[in-house]
């Protein structure tokens, strides 16, 4: 029975090409327009991006360099040690990193504050920083050891990102990736017996590009807007299903279904499942489009499907709530309001048009309390290479949101048919 109602809903969608265009083609067009138009801003070119970084250093670098040279004297001939000593001041990784971050050219969008390791926990709780970069103990010693002796893997920086500042963390990730490449290159040369004393790390390469550590993927504007448009436009499915359901009430098809002794809960569940299934299908169609046209690949397909399912369920909950409210107030005003005003508002708060929350933390908090905003955060986190564990709060929120919508809808839904 439920399946028949869902199948009927599918037929109604298919017989309404205008609606299909709005639900499927429009978001695709918007992705292309926004991805292109706002691409430079999204990719950090001339954008008002502001990276606020906290820098924690656990050991004194100069002391580590001196200890390294002392230890090196026991392993290499004195001439080699002298050569290295002459150039090592240009190969101190922490110093290079600091110079890059404090460079005047990046002054406009990077502010670095230096902290003592004892302040680490307080900084993490504060959440006002785009990222906390921490230099682990013995970092410089190990980097130099890896470079010159080549017998160990170079160590990694410890970076804690602020998940809510998606663009900022994306830029910083890209920055750090370049730095990591430089360190790895030095390690490779050392391992292959190339005289490192004659090579200096080219600061100009590092300048303005910086570092990488946790191997997170940068996000393109097309990827961001694919997600943004999906989470916005899928909300229209809830409105469309609410509209169809109210039409069924108006023309007394709902009464016919009730008189056929079909439980109102069967109808209710059909609406919920229709919303969920069609939201999932719509999402998948747009994501497939972005895969073909923009080559957007999901690092973790399973996590991606889980987010899409959770979001689709939340949309299904919205569909059944809109239906119940329309039935309750005997008007489609609520659906119209949702389609014309609420979706746009939710899209702005959720960051579909621009990651506004990166600059206004309060908006970010509110945005993450919307189903589209929570989904967008989850998708972006996945695109950056994180696993499902990093989005557990969003997943729980989406499922809870759907459940709450269903409960409210159940309380509002008419007990029998609808009045004459």
């Amino acid at each position, binding site marked *: 029975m439920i399946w028949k109602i869902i199948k009927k809903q599918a037929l*109604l969608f298919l017989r309404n090409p205008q609606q299909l265009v709005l639900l499927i083609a429009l978001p695709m067009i918007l992705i292309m327009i926004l991805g292109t138009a706002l691409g430079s801003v999204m990719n950090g070119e001339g954008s008002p991006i502001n990276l606020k970084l906290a820098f924690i250093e656990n050991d004194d670098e100069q002391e580590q360099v001196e200890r390294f040279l002392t230890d090196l004297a026991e392993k290499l001939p004195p001439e080699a040690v002298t050569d290295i000593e002459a150039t090592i001041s240009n190969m101190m990784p922490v110093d290079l990193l600091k110079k890059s971050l404090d460079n005047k050219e990046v002054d406009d969008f990077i502010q670095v504050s230096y902290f003592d390791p004892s302040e680490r926990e307080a900084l993490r709780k504060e959440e006002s920083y785009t990222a906390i970069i921490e230099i682990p103990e013995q970092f410089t010693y190990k980097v130099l050891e890896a470079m010159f002796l080549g017998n160990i893997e170079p160590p990694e920086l410890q970076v804690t990102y602020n998940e809510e500042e998606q663009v900022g963390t994306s830029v910083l990730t890209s920055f750090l990736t370049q730095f990591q490449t430089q360190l790895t290159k030095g390690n490779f040369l050392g391992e292959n017996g190339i005289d490192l004393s004659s090579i200096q790390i080219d600061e100009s390469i590092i300048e303005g590009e910086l570092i990488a550590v946790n191997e997170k993927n940068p996000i393109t504007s097309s990827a961001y807007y694919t997600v943004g448009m999906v989470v916005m436009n899928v909300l229209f499915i809830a409105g469309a299903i609410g509209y169809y359901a109210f039409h069924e009430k*108006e023309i007394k098809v709902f009464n016919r279904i009730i008189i*056929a002794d079909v439980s109102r809960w069967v109808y209710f569940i059909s609406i919920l499942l229709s919303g969920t299934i069609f939201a999932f299908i719509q999402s998948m169609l747009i994501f497939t489009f972005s895969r073909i046209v923009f080559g957007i690949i999901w690092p973790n397909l399973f996590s991606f499907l889980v987010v899409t399912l959770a979001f689709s369920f939340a949309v299904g909950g919205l569909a059944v709530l809109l239906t119940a409210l329309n039935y309750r107030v005997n008007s489609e005003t609520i659906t119209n309001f949702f389609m014309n005003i609420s979706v746009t508002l939710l899209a702005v708060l959720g960051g579909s048009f621009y990651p506004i929350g990166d600059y206004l933390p309060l908006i970010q908090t509110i945005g993450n309390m919307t189903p589209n905003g929570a989904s967008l955060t989850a998708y972006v986190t996945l695109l950056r290479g994180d696993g499902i564990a990093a989005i557990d709060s969003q997943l729980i929120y989406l499922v809870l949101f759907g459940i709450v919508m269903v409960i409210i809808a159940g309380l509002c839904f008419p007990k029998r048919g609808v009045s*004459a």
Partner: protein
Amino acid sequence: MIELVNLSKKYKQVDAVKNLNMFIEKGEIVGLLGPNGAGKSTAISMLSSLVEPTSGDVRFENNSILKNPSPLRKVVGMVPQEIALYTDLTAEENLEFFGRIYKLSGKALKRKMDEVLEQIGLTDRRKDIVKKFSGGMKRRLNIGVAMLHDPEMIIMDEPTVGIDPQSRNYILETVKRLNEERQMTVLYTSHYMEEVEFLCDRIYIMDKGNLIASGTKGEIKQILSSEKTISIKLDRLNDQFVEGLRENPLVNRVTVGEKEVTILVPREANMFSDVIKIAEAAELEIYSVDNKTPTLEDVFLHLTGRALRD
């Protein structure tokens, strides 16, 4: 088969139906007559278990349906006043959907769909999208959907509103045939007097939420057994003529048409000479004077002082 006992429905401050008592026996066609807003649709919504009454009871086979409507729902087909169809689907898709709602499937569903399409004369149009149908075709399909599960009783709420005379006749004939050939019980609501007169064995008349008359056609017309109606056709009308009729002590009521006046007078009264005199005084030419037996329309007019379609 079905009995409505002191049934009332109140919406906020409006009494849509007040203490309605009626019964429907198996195999009969019962008419529920009344103008728009009389409470007919509310009454049948309560009868069919769609709307909960404010007070009173609906009994099916001597059991209340208020707490357990399933036994009634299994044997009732409903034809709402609205075209309760998916107009973006084909006739066949609509029948299939509603057939499955009625738990039909496979060959049984297909056979039933063929049969219904034949009955409503839409076999050739089964693959067509409903929104391309004429008003009459949509009405026929609307009825067909209610017949899919072979109901023992069919409730029709003004099923001929807004259609051409040919489709209307087709529908009336179909209803009559269903009753005669299958002994299907029919509750037919309408404000078209002639439809009810043509179809129904017994009639209930409602106005402003109240039941104002009930019985067989003959019994209801007996309400006017002591009176008769006289229809007077003239070349034109003026106030002097109408006032002259109203002042005549034998005339109980005057209804004015375009070039016609209908008066209600005692059965034994001979009004011919009086009418001629009043017309001459008003300088009017009489074309005809007809004595008529009272119609249901006359009964309604007599009971409420208003025409059914006012």
